[in-house]
């Protein structure tokens, strides 16, 4: 009993660190991945050594060679920037907005199951909680766009709201299929159900629940996964669905007027949201902290479970970036078309398929 308490405490601390570290690492990764895809070098100058040298003002440490500390230095720079509140802005809402956006993402981290004893808040409605709390951020975005008294900001905020509200539906329906198979909303139990060989993952059907017959769910689960992944791109305002902050159309969308640390918070929240979105995908479809090879899981190497989990999430984050640097952006009406005419019918189809499976085949 004591053991579990200690582990919970540790996992809470880890999560607190994770939120900020994930943001910084993702930003660095994004810059490097985009650079390599475009035959560029990306950040190269600011290593940890050079950053330390710049802070103490002496050349004591070895200079970095691949720019690992670039996002950290950027954060430090943004901290020092002037905090501008535009004239005519609603000051209270303007200042509140980034906190709400960040708060929504941060709260969602609490329920992520990193490992069996690494769940900071192991609530039995974990999935429901994460979906609810992470879409809380849209309130902040709407606030930011409205309060900054900027027409581009307002347009961006409205686009964002319309987009998020629409894409909640396919996300919800596609995840319900998994909930039906597992019969629980607790993320931890969902992951536990996927332990063992990798074909037990929900991506490949419901083999762990119903044995070999579960394989008939393989195609719909693939579709579900693709739909969930697409929608999570839209939920987190990533390309090709980044119309709320489309830099060539709306300047910067809802955060046009934000500077300094407030802007940095939006930025961190965005990457935090990407992490949460992909963490759900990993938890529900890709076996969570399970490596997919039972021998490895049973070896009980300390710390390997969260490592596997985070690695999986970052592989998905890489795909998110890969998509972003390949595809152009959709238009607002096309975005809605995609959601209502393509994604929702398909999720409904998979939903009925799983229902029929559940009723007649098990």
């Amino acid at each position, binding site marked *: 009993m004591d053991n579990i308490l200690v582990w919970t405490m540790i996992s809470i601390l880890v999560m607190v660190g994770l939120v900020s570290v994930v943001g910084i690492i993702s930003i660095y990764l994004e810059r490097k991945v985009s650079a*390599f*895809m*475009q*035959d560029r*070098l990306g950040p190269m*100058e600011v290593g940890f050594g050079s950053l330390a040298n710049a802070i103490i003002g002496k050349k004591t440490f070895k200079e970095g060679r691949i720019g690992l500390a670039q996002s950290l230095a950027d954060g430090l720079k943004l901290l020092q920037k002037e905090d501008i509140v535009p004239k005519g802005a609603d000051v209270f809402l303007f200042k509140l907005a980034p906190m709400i956006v960040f708060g929504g993402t941060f709260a969602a981290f609490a329920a992520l199951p990193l490992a069996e004893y690494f769940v900071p808040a192991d609530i039995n409605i974990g999935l429901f909680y994460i979906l609810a709390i992470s879409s809380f951020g849209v309130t902040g975005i709407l606030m930011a766009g409205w309060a900054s008294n900027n027409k581009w900001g307002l347009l961006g905020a409205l686009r964002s709201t319309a987009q998020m509200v629409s894409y909640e539906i396919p996300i919800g329906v596609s995840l319900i299929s998994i909930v039906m198979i597992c019969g629980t909303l607790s993320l931890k139990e969902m992951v536990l159900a996927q332990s063992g060989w990798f074909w037990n993952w929900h991506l490949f059907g419901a083999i762990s629940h119903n044995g070999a017959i579960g394989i008939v769910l393989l195609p719909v689960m693939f579709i579900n996964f693709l739909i969930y992944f697409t929608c999570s791109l839209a939920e987190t305002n990533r390309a090709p669905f980044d119309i709320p902050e489309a830099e060539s159309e709306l300047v910067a969308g809802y955060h046009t007027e934000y500077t300094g640390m407030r802007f940095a918070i939006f930025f961190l929240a965005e990457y935090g949201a990407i992490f949460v979105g992909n963490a759900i995908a990993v938890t529900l479809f890709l076996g969570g902290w399970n490596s997919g090879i039972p021998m490895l899981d049973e070896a009980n190497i300390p710390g390997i479970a969260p490592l596997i989990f985070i690695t999986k999430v970052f592989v998905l984050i890489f795909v998110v970036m*890969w998509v972003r*640097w*390949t595809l152009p952006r959709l238009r607002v009406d096309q975005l809605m078309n995609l959601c209502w005419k393509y994604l929702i019918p398909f999720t409904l189809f998979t939903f009925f398929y799983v229902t029929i499976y559940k009723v007649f085949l098990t």
Partner: protein
Amino acid sequence: MSYFGNISKAFSTIATGMKITFRHFKNARKPDGIFTTQYPHKAVPLPKFSRQQLHNRIEDCIGCMKCANACPVSCIYIETVKAPAGTLSDTSNGQKRRLYLTRYDIDMAKCMFCALCTYPCPTECITINSDFNFIKFERKDLLYKFSDYSPEQVEQIKQEAKLREQQEAAEKIAKAKAAAEAKLKAETEAKAKAEVPQVEAKTEEVKAEQKPETKE
């Protein structure tokens, strides 16, 4: 296009695009996978004729003003003072230098890097070179001064020139006086020779009148 046709088209074209970007991502580790360089550490060499900065070899400049006249934006400022013959050395291609260059300034802030000034130069002393790194913190620092005289020297040269000018003017006056006297003399002589046929006298008169004018 049909509903499912749309979907398959979307998937296939997105896959092609992602294949290409992934190929670039994979090739980034190869030596020619990355196109950019880390500039201050590794610069791409510029061609020899790259037009970046104007330079004037002042020891070869004869102050002919051809470059200043060729400049479309008038960014070359030249002031010259006449030098006594023989005081200045010849240029490297054997032209005589007859002028002190008290001012030869090029305003690189105004310059449009067209290099039109380098073509008419008779001694090829104004050149445009490929040294691109001439960042300055003050705008006035972009005014490049090529004249090798210090302000004091310029002052001295100007005064000397003034003195010389005065001397020359004095000499000129003296010469003019002498000429006038000569003319007077000639006239009196002509008068004395009034008996001599008039045609001859007239030609003499014309000559005498022309003399002082040509000297000026």
